[in-house]
C-alpha cells in the first residue's frame, strides 16, 4: 500500500455527495435511515433488505460506502460480517463498509479489521440518533478511514488486566487513545477536545512511547495498531 492508494478515496470532488447503499432488513430502520441520510446530504443509491440485493447494487450503483446490518436474512446471524469480508475482498478500498448492529462484539470487530482497518466502520445502532456522529463516521469510512464504536473502545480501555500499562497514561492521554481507537484523525481529536493539533500530536507521541508502539503515519494503520494493542494480553 502506498500513500497514494491511501488517499485515493478522498480524491472525489468536494461538491459530489457521498454515494451510500444500505442493506437493512428492518423496514422501519431502513426507511428512517434513508430519509436521515438524504436530509443530511448523502446520495442514497440503494436501500435493500438482504445481502444479495446489496452485491447487485454495488455493481450497478457504484456506492462509496455501504451501510450493513449484521443480522439479516436468511439466517439472521452474522450475514453482515461475512458480506463485509466479501465486499472488501472484491472491491478493496473502493467501497467503504460501515456495519450497524444492536450489539457490538469485540470478536466481530477484530474479524473486520483482521487484515486492515482502512474503510471499515462498526457502530451500534444507538448512534443513528445523532446524525452528526453518523455522518462523520460515514465520511471517515468513505475516505478510507475507520469508525469504531465508542462503547467497544471504552470496553477495551476499561478492560482489566494483570499488568496494565494503560495506568501509566494520563487521563487526557487515555481520552486521546480512545479517540484514536475509534478512528479519529489528530485534527478531529483536536476539534473534539478543543486543543491545538500540536498538543494532540504531543499526546500521541507520548502514548506511543509509553505503550512501546511504533508511530504510524496513517490514521487507519494507527487504529489497527491501537486496537491490536488493546486486545493483546
Amino acid at each position: 500500500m502506498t500513500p497514494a492508494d491511501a488517499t485515493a478515496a478522498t480524491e472525489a470532488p468536494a461538491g459530489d455527495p457521498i454515494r451510500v447503499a444500505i442493506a437493512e432488513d428492518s423496514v422501519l430502520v431502513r426507511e428512517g435511515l434513508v430519509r436521515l441520510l438524504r436530509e443530511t446530504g448523502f446520495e442514497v443509491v440503494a436501500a435493500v433488505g438482504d445481502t444479495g440485493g446489496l452485491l447487485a447494487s454495488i455493481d450497478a450503483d457504484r456506492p462509496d460506502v455501504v451501510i450493513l446490518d449484521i443480522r439479516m436474512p436468511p439466517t439472521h446471524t452474522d450475514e453482515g460480517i461475512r458480506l463485509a469480508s466479501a465486499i472488501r475482498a472484491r472491491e478493496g478500498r473502493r467501497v467503504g463498509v460501515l456495519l450497524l448492529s444492536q450489539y457490538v462484539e469485540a470478536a466481530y470487530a477484530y474479524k473486520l479489521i483482521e487484515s486492515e482497518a482502512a474503510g471499515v466502520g462498526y457502530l451500534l445502532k444507538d448512534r443513528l440518533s445523532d446524525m452528526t456522529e453518523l455522518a462523520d463516521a460515514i465520511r471517515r469510512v468513505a475516505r478510507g478511514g475507520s469508525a469504531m464504536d465508542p462503547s467497544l473502545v471504552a470496553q477495551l480501555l476499561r478492560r482489566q488486566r494483570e499488568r496494565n500499562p494503560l495506568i501509566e497514561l494520563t487521563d487526557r492521554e487515555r481520552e486521546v487513545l480512545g479517540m484514536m481507537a475509534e478512528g479519529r484523525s489528530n485534527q478531529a481529536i483536536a476539534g473534539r477536545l478543543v486543543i491545538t493539533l500540536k498538543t494532540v500530536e504531543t499526546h500521541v507521541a507520548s502514548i506511543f512511547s509509553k505503550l512501546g508502539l511504533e508511530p504510524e503515519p496513517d490514521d487507519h494503520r494507527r487504529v489497527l495498531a491501537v486496537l491490536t494493542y488493546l486486545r493483546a494480553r
Partner: protein
Amino acid sequence: MIARTVSSTLSRTLVLAVLALLAGTLFGGVGELEQVRYGDRPPVWVLGDFIGGWTFLLTGAVAWVRRPDNRIGPLLLTIGFSWFVGTHVRASVDWMSYLARAFQGYYEPLIGALVLAYPSGRLAGRLERFVIGAWLLDQVAWSIAQLVLLRPLSWYSCPTCLETADAYIANRYLLEGIGPVTLALSVGLGGAVLVLAARRLLAAGPAGRRRLAPVALASLALALGILAPNGIRLTIDPALYVDPGVVALSYVLDMLAAVAVLGGLLQDRLARTAVADLVIDLRRDAAAIGTEPRRLRDALARALGDPSLELFLFDPGTDGYQDATGRPAALPTAGPSRAVTMIGDGGDRVAAIAHDPILLDDPGLISAVTTAVRLESDNRQLTGEVERQLAELRASRARIVTATDVERRRVERDLHDGAQQRLVSLSMELGRVRAAAARSADPELVGSLAALSAELEAAIEELRELARGILPPILTDAGLGPAVESLALRAPLPVDAEVTVPGRLPPAIESTLYFVIAEGLANVARHAHATRVTIRIAGGDGRVLVEVADDGVGGAAVTRGSGIQGLIDRVGALGGTLRVDSLDGRGTTLRAEVPIPP
C-alpha cells in the same frame, strides 16, 4: 419354620436309617453266623456274602439320610435285608428257617427295580412298572407255594431232621412242578429288565450315560450272578454248580453298583451347588448373557452337566423362540431321547431348554436351575425397564434444555426484530426532531428533547442487556470462545481465559457452559472479593470441561433456588456434572464437565 421342618425330617430319617442299618447288620450277622455254624460253606464265602449284603445296607442308609426325598435309599436298605433273608435258611429255629426259605430271593426283583428306578427312585414308565410288578408277583407266588407246601420240621417232632435243617416237603411233586415255572418267569422278567436297562443306556446322551453307570453295573451283576445261572439251570443243567469265582464277581459287581448308586445320588446333591454357581455365573456375566445367549447356554450346560443342552429364548416380538445364536427356531418335540423344560409360565414365557431326559430324574435340580434363570431374567427385565425409563428421562431432560434454548433464541430474536428496531427508529426520529429544534433555538425544547433522547438511549441499552442475558447472539453466531471473550471484556475484574475447544459444540452444550461461566463471573463479581478470575475451557476425549476459578474469600455454598442450583440441573440434564469447590479463604472454583455426544 421351613428350616426347622427340614431339619426335623432330616433327624427323623437319620434315626430311622441308623436303626435300619443296625437291625440289618444284626439280621445279616445272625444269619451268616448260622451259615458258619452249619458249616456247609467256607467262612470266607460267608464273609463275602455278608460284606455284599452289608454294602447295600450301608449305602442305603447313607443315601436315605443324604437324599431323604429319594426312594433309592430305602430300596437299597430293603435289598440289603432281603439279601440276608436266605442266610436264615440254616437257622436253628425251624420256623425261621421255614420263613426264610419261603421269602428268600426277593432281592432279585428288587435289584431289577433298582436298575429301572435309578436315579429318581421311581419307575418312570408303564412297562417298567409292569415288569417289576410281575417279577414281584412271581416271587410272591413262589413264596406262597413254599409256605403252603413246606412245613417247619418241629411241627412233626423230628429232632433229627434239624441236623440237616431240611424242610419237610408236604407235596414234593407239586413244588417241583411250580418251581421251574416261577423260575422261568423270573428269568424272563429279569431279561426284560436288562432289555429296558439297555434301552435306557442306548437312548441316553453323554450326560445320561455317565449318570447311568450304576444301572450298567447292577445290570451286569443281575445278569451274571442271577439270571445267567438260573437260565442255565432251567435249560441245560438243573444241577448247575456256580463257580465261586463267578459268584464272587457278581458280588463285586453288586457292591460296585450299590456304591455307584450312592455316589450318583450324592453327585445329584452336589449338582445343587452347581445351581449356586449358576446364579453367580448369571450375575457376573449378566451384561454378556443379555447380549450373548450362548453364554447363558454354556452356564446352563455346566450347571446341569449336559453338554448337549440347547437353549431357546422366547421372543415376544415374533411370539416364537430363538436359539442361542439368535435365529428363530422351533422347540424340539419331547421324546424318549430328548426332554424339553419350559422356563416361565404360559402368560410369561421366558425360555425353554431341550436336554437329556435323564435330568428329569432329579426334578429338584432342574427346577432350581430354571428358577435361577427365571429370577435372573426377571431381574434383567426389571433392570432393563429401569434403564429404559432412565434413558427416557435423560432424553426428556436434554430435550427440555434444548427447548428452553430454542425459546430463549426466539424471545431474543423477537426483541431484536421488534422492540429494539422500533426503539432505534424512534431514536432516529427523535434525532431529526432534535436537529430541527436546535435550528428553531428554543432552549427549553432542546433541553427536554435531549433528556428524552438520553432516556431513550438508556432504554435501548437496558433492553440490549436484557436480550443479551436471554441468549447472546454472539454465542449462537460465533460459538463459546468469542462469547466468553465478550463476557470477559465486560467483567469488572481481570479475567484470564484459556479456551482450547476446537470448533463448535452442540448448541445445548454451548449455551449451558456459557451460562455456567456467566453465572460464575457474576458470583465472583458479587461475592468473592477476588482480584482475578481464570476461565478455562478444555475439550477432548468426548468431554468438555469448563472452570471458573477465583482467588477470593471462598466459602460459597449452593443454596436452593440459587442460580447455581438451576445450572446443576441444566448440566445434569446433559449428563454432565457441576461442582462448586469453595473453602474459606481458598477462593471458589466452579467446575462443569459435560459429555459431547458422538
